[in-house]
């Protein structure tokens, strides 16, 4: 009985999620975020964060090097475009595979350690990748500039199928549908929904239970004769594949792969997205990713003129005072808002934004059925 209800509610969640994602352009329009590039970024970083959450949310292993897989995915995708075809499918597939492969390698070594030692190992690998990609590996990565497409690229599969892009620089297309703009977003959105579904299945599966057990007490697991490392490694590889996929999609929607994608700040970003949204929850990472990307792209764009216009209803002296305070937080000060947001969320909503949603829901529910017994002590969001 309980299982059936759970299955049903999962289906509802999935359908709601899919509907919300696909309606994204309309829903987000009033917030100034309804344009293709940002929508694509929401979807792609949502995938990245969902994948990261499978590792961190379930097993508790805090990787500080996941950006490396994102970067590897991007480089793989761009090279696939250059060498094979502008079709996104092989690019995305290879990006996922290579992301997984590198994750297997790095995970195999790093998972020999736990706790912060594990974090530092992953950080070290990612930083090495970044530093090398920026300098010595420039023939492969095109260094600072980033790997770009050229007209003269071979694209053997495209040539074999007789596709000719003429004199302009090609952009990736799915059998004739251009992957920039809204079609690109819907492609990413479809992948996001699929990834969300997979992650949901993992959360509900016995494998997911096992991963949770790794988090709660690894020693006890080991004493029962179970070797936990293969499970942790599997989770690491899966999240690495998610990251590779996200990196591949970044290249699909915008065929350029830059080395900064692998920097520790990028690894840190996905950690922050996940915690901000709600670690270990299904939806949280997507929301966290959206929040951070929103700040990065929209808050940074507010300048003094816009602020002056916004507060033009105030008397002039007050207007200037308000603007000078507000400009601390937007435009070039958007980092400040982000930092303050991190602090506020962690201090007041330890479970991330999802906990806020849940608390709100509980409040609502309590009002609705005030005569029925209510759950007074909700389970932690972890």
């Amino acid at each position: 009985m309980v299982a059936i209800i759970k299955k049903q509610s999962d289906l509802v969640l999935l359908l709601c999620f899919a509907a919300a994602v696909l309606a994204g352009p309309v829903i987000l329009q009033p917030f100034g975020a309804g344009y293709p590039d940002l929508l694509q970024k929401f979807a792609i970083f949502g995938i990245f964060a969902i994948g990261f959450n499978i590792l961190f949310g379930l097993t508790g292993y805090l990787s500080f090097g996941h950006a490396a897989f994102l970067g590897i995915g991007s480089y793989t995708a761009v090279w696939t475009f250059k060498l094979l075809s502008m079709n996104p499918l092989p690019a995305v597939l290879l990006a996922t595979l290579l992301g997984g492969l590198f994750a297997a390698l790095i995970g195999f070594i790093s998972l020999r350690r736990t706790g912060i030692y594990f974090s530092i190992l992953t950080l070290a690998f990612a930083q090495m990748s970044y530093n090398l990609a920026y300098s010595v590996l420039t023939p492969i990565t095109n260094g600072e500039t980033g790997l770009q497409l050229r007209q003269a690229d071979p694209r053997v599969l495209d040539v074999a199928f007789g596709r000719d892009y003429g004199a302009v620089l090609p952009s990736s297309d799915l059998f004739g549908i251009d992957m920039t703009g809204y079609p690109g977003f819907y492609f990413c959105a479809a992948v996001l929904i699929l990834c969300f579904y997979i992650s949901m299945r993992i959360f509900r599966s016995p494998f997911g239970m096992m991963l949770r057990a790794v988090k709660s007490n690894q020693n006890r697991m080991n004493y029962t004769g179970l070797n936990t490392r293969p499970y942790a490694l599997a989770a690491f590889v899966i999240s690495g594949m998610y990251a590779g996929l996200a990196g591949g999609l970044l290249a699909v929607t915008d065929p350029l792969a830059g080395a900064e994608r692998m920097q520790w700040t990028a690894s840190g970003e996905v950690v922050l997205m996940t915690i901000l949204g709600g670690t270990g929850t299904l939806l949280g990472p997507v929301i966290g990713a959206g929040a951070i990307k929103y700040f990065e792209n929209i808050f940074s764009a507010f300048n003094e003129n816009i602020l002056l216009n916004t507060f033009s209803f105030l008397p002039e002296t007050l207007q200037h005072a308000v603007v000078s305070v507000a400009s601390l937080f937007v435009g070039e000060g958007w980092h400040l808002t982000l930092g303050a947001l991190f602090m506020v969320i962690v201090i007041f909503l330890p479970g991330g934004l999802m906990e806020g949603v849940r608390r709100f829901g509980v409040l609502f529910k309590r009002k609705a059925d005030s005569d029925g017994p209510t759950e007074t002590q909700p389970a932690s969001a972890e």
Partner: protein
Amino acid sequence: MANFTKVSRRSLLRGAAAATTALAAPTIFTSKAWAAGYTNEPKGSTVTLGFNVPQTGAYADEGADELRAYQLAVEHINGEGDGGMLNTFSSKALTGAGVNGKKVVFVTGDTQTKSDAARASAKRMIEKDGAVMITGGSSSGVAIAVQGLCQDAGVIFMAGLTHSNDTTGKDKRANGFRHFFNTEMTGAALAPVLKNNFGTERNAYHLTADYTWGWSQEGSIKKYTEQLGWNTAAAVRTPLGAGDFSQYITPVLNSGADTLVLNHYGRDMVNSLTQAVQFGLRDKQVNGKDFAIVVPLYSRLMAQGAGENVKGIFGSTNWHWSLQDEGSKAFVKSFGQKYGFPPSQAAHTTYCQALLYADAAQRAGTFRPSGVGKSLEGFKFDGLGNGPTEYRAEDHQCFKDVLVVKGKENPSSKFDVLEVVEVTPRAQVEYPASLLGGELGPYNDGA
């Protein structure tokens, strides 16, 4: 989606109030249905330009200065303020009534000096705000990345501060234009001055930032100094943002080299120069000669961070506020009166780029990228502070005089860091467009 509802009210207010930008904003679906149009063709009474500058990270101050210059340029184009260099500009197409009868408005964004962030920001300007031209930036990696994007999207890119050869060389694009000079010109301009000051028998040691711009710079300086007869003792690559360069500087001490070339920019330059001086290199004697330090690309704004360590050190720069031509004087006056301090070279080049774009669009009578581009190609102008200048048609690179500067011995204020040693005439820094390779390709007008 709780996080979005939080900002909804503010956004709505903003949306209502900032009608100027909204007017010019395109419909959400920039489809290919209007084949006759071009990307973000301005339909209302305004035209939107996108100013994409670093607002966070190491170049934030430079970005802020660029933004100041852009604001000034927009004022002047719209007929506000004292008109600045519009009064000295040789082309008189712009009359202070906007461009093509439309008032110029702008949107801003943060490049973070990262290719990804810069492209995301530029895309926002193109897709959401309807910008018809993107300009700005403080590094070559960003410039090349955004230039590629603008080519694909079908808008014009007017590069900001970017010094690598590749921007108008290997990675040049039809929709991209650069006013700033490059490492090739730095080499050609600097070499004669180095010869006059340090002779032809020098043993140079290079420290080079380990990324594309650094290599480009190292290559150019090597090429031109070796033509003078200098020997290159070693060229050592240093990681970007190394902070402490002592481990690269100590080998210079006993290497027998008598000249140190620091192919660093920004913070790397500040730190490596400070530390080189700390290790006594400026006062050293080698082979009976005074040891010399050269910083090929100077930025006055950044040089302030190195303080008195820049004294007597040679380098090149695109422009300096102490220049006495009418254009420079007009620009310094109008910038200084508005902000209280002189503009940097980054501010100058971006101001020029905004003006040049507006002028070209006015002369072309359209904002269509191919139209604007055609009127920029081969455009000869004067009165923008660098003497007679030409936008070369073959690679969309400006050719103009290059300034060789030296750290001032007795600065009169904290802005007075550099003195102009020589203005190398344009003829001396010109090179054939084929030298740097690359392919412009056709213009892209987009949708």
